[in-house]
């Protein structure tokens, strides 16, 4: 009986298994079919979006051609037409981008439905290329190639895509650029050897054109540089359309930790003021900045290259705070508002106006307001020499109570000449490698109250050396730059105000100020958004270290001091 019970149980078990397992198999097979169906649907949707994106991009290219034609006539009416065409082009490019974004999402979901299928990975690469996210596109295409993805109808399409992505994401002089060219040559060679080139290598013409353009890039860059050298102020026409940005302005946060061994600029050998425990302190400097540059151009018969000269408006706001851990009474906050406009008179000369207002708080109380207006004549002799002749009107106002007699508020006038010389340039893209700068200025003031009038002579010398700059978008380190500068100031006060202890004679004060600064910055992490908003190296992150040594000598002993200041900072652009 027991046996038969077990036998029955076994039969039942077997019966259940016989019924259930095939059912499970059917379920698995059905589920696989459903996944395959969803995969096919996702791929189809993605591909149609990508095709639509290509069509939009084609239409945008036609608008670009239209804009180039309009640029050839240089009258006022054509400027209005040009603006309209450029707006249409921008709209089409934004639409192309949106479609490529959608395509990417479909291909990503296709990959989750069939993770073993490299086709979805390859198409993600194509969508990323359309989004100009070349570094991620290269990764995807390489992954697909590693997984041996191959379309039997177009066997070399990954070769073409990888070659195009490498060449598109790098510049001449970069190993990736050369690697990209090799892939294109390989694709072209395979196509030439194929009896069915038109069907199996549909991008043969494009590959040839891109390869030839890559070979011609050094000559193209040289031509562009020679135009810039002849006419530094000429503007490209049409003006390049700026790409998508995260925000309608550039912003950054900078945070530094530093050490200042003489925060209160205590004179040499002098005693600490009462209530001041020390003169040195660790400090934190934090800066928040906002800004936007607006580029524009105007037609000019003086330009032989494009017929257009460039202008620009610049707006910036900075908020900076220094917090001294050991000397809280020296804490300071600074608000800076700056607006600037520059315009080109000729291909080599232009004007510049910069206006700024700065509000300084010391220990949270308003201390000073400084208004500065700079008027400058800017001479760009060529792409390596630049001179600025400036006049500054500076108005300083104390925001603390002063009596009329001792009111130091007033105007300061400054005449300045700056000379910038690019001594050495990069052999491929002609960007500055070694730059020398010299600046001379003369200042005099007109204070409101009984004067502590002074005259100042100032000399600044600076060397800036770019040790490294990336030649492709995918390198993490974008650039490494070092600089060294020295500032000399000589101040002569007009009125005798101090009594010499020995002789009892009244003397006028005179100071000699000297400041040495060494700095290094490392720009990192390329981002298209940063490039589009105008960050020079297109970097998200920047590490800056700086050391500064200051010495002031004076015939008034109490005013002569030394100071060492060091800080290390991290700047985040967004």
């Amino acid at each position, binding site marked *: 009986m027991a046996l038969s019970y077990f036998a029955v149980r076994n039969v039942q078990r077997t019966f259940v298994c016989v019924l259930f397992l095939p059912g499970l198999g059917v379920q698995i097979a059905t589920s696989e079919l459903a996944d395959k169906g969803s*995969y096919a649907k996702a791929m189809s949707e993605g*591909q149609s979006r990508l095709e639509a994106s290509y069509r939009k991009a*084609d239409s945008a290219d036609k608008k670009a051609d239209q804009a180039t034609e309009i640029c050839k006539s240089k009258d006022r009416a054509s400027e209005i037409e040009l603006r309209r065409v450029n707006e249409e082009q921008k709209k089409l490019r934004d639409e192309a981008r949106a479609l490529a974004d959608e395509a990417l999402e479909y291909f990503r979901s296709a990959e989750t439905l069939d993770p073993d299928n490299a086709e979805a990975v390859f198409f993600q690469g194509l969508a990323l*290329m359309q989004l*100009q996210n070349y570094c991620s596109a290269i990764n995807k295409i390489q992954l697909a190639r590693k997984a041996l993805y191959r*379309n039997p109808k177009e066997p070399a399409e990954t070769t073409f*895509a990888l070659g195009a992505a490498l060449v*598109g994401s790098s*510049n001449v002089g970069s190993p990736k650029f050369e690697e990209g060219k090799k892939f294109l040559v390989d694709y072209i060679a395979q196509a030439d050897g194929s009896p069915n080139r038109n069907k199996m290598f549909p*991008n043969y013409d*494009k590959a040839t*054109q891109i390869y*030839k*353009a890559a070979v*011609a*890039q050094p000559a193209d860059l040289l031509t562009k540089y020679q135009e*810039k050298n002849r006419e530094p102020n000429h503007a*490209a026409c049409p003006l*390049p359309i700026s790409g998508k940005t995260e925000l309608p302005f550039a912003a*950054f946060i900078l945070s530094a930790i530093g050490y200042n061994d003489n925060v209160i*600029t205590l004179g040499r050998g002098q005693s600490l003021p009462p209530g001041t425990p020390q003169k040195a302190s660790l400090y934190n400097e934090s800066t928040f900045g906002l*800004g936007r540059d607006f580029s524009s151009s105007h037609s000019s018969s003086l330009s032989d290259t494009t017929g257009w000269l460039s202008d620009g408006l*610049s707006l*910036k706001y*900075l908020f*900076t705070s220094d917090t001294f851990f050991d000397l809280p009474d020296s804490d*300071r906050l*600074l608000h*800076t508002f700056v607006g600037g406009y*520059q315009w080109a008179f000729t291909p080599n000369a232009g004007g510049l106006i910069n206006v700024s207002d700065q509000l*300084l708080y010391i220990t949270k109380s308003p201390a000073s307001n*400084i208004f*500065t207006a700079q008027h400058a004549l800017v001479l760009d002799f060529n792409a*390596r020499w*630049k001179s600025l002749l400036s006049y500054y009107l*500076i108005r*300083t106002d*104390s925001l603390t109570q002063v009596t009329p*007699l*001792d009111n130091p508020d007033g105007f300061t006038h400054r005449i300045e000449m*700056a000379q*910038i010389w*690019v001594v050495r340039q990069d052999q491929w*893209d002609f*960007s500055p490698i070694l730059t020398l700068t010299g*600046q001379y200025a003369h200042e005099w*003031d007109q204070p409101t*109250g009984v*004067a*502590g*009038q002074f005259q100042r002579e100032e000399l*600044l010398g600076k060397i800036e050396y770019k040790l490294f700059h990336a030649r492709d978008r995918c390198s993490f380190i974008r650039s490494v730059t070092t*600089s060294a500068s020295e500032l000399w100031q000589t101040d002569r006060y007009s009125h005798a*105000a101090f009594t010499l202890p020995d002789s009892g004679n009244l003397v006028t*004060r005179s100071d000699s100020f000297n400041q040495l*600064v060494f*700095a290094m*910055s490392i720009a990192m992490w390329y981002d298209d958004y940063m490039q589009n908003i105008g960050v020079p190296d297109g970097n998200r992150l920047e590490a800056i270290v700086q050391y500064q040594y200051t010495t002031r000598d004076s015939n008034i002993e109490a*005013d002569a001091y030394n100071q060492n*200041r060091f800080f290390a900072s991290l700047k985040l652009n967004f």
Partner: protein
Amino acid sequence: MRTFYAVATATIAVPLLAVAQEAARDITREMGADTATSVSQGLDRTGLHRNTERVRRGQHAPSLLEAPQGETSNVKKLSKSQRRQLQRERDLLLKDRTAAMDAAATATGASNRANRVYSTSEQRTEDVAAARKNAKREWDAKWGQQLQSIDRAITQGSEGGKRARFHAPSLINPK
């Protein structure tokens, strides 16, 4: 005497306060925000001196895919008169083709009537369409290449040295 002392005190005090104003400018320089100079000391970490301190550098080399510098075509841009001439030739050829197709359609109708072939209106429409199609095919065989080369000349000539545009590899049908 009082006035003298007041002036003397002020004369001593004012340089100190004036220095305090200079200290304000020194502080702004230390904080990387000196706007009363064209050139920054050290590195321009706040970007305030970008417009004054930097020489306009050469254009950032554009990606070859975004602004490709394709080989300049050997085809020269057509002048207006050249384009008009080509357009006229094209119109003449198209007129000739239409005439050939119309003639074939008319001949089909006449032939049907002559042969007294009974046909419905649908059949007659089909016959005419087929005749037009055949006539077009025959015409294309003789003159099609000429029409195509004129089309190509018009297109390429209007593009002149048009630069290459990138197209990603053509898409395959999903599995």
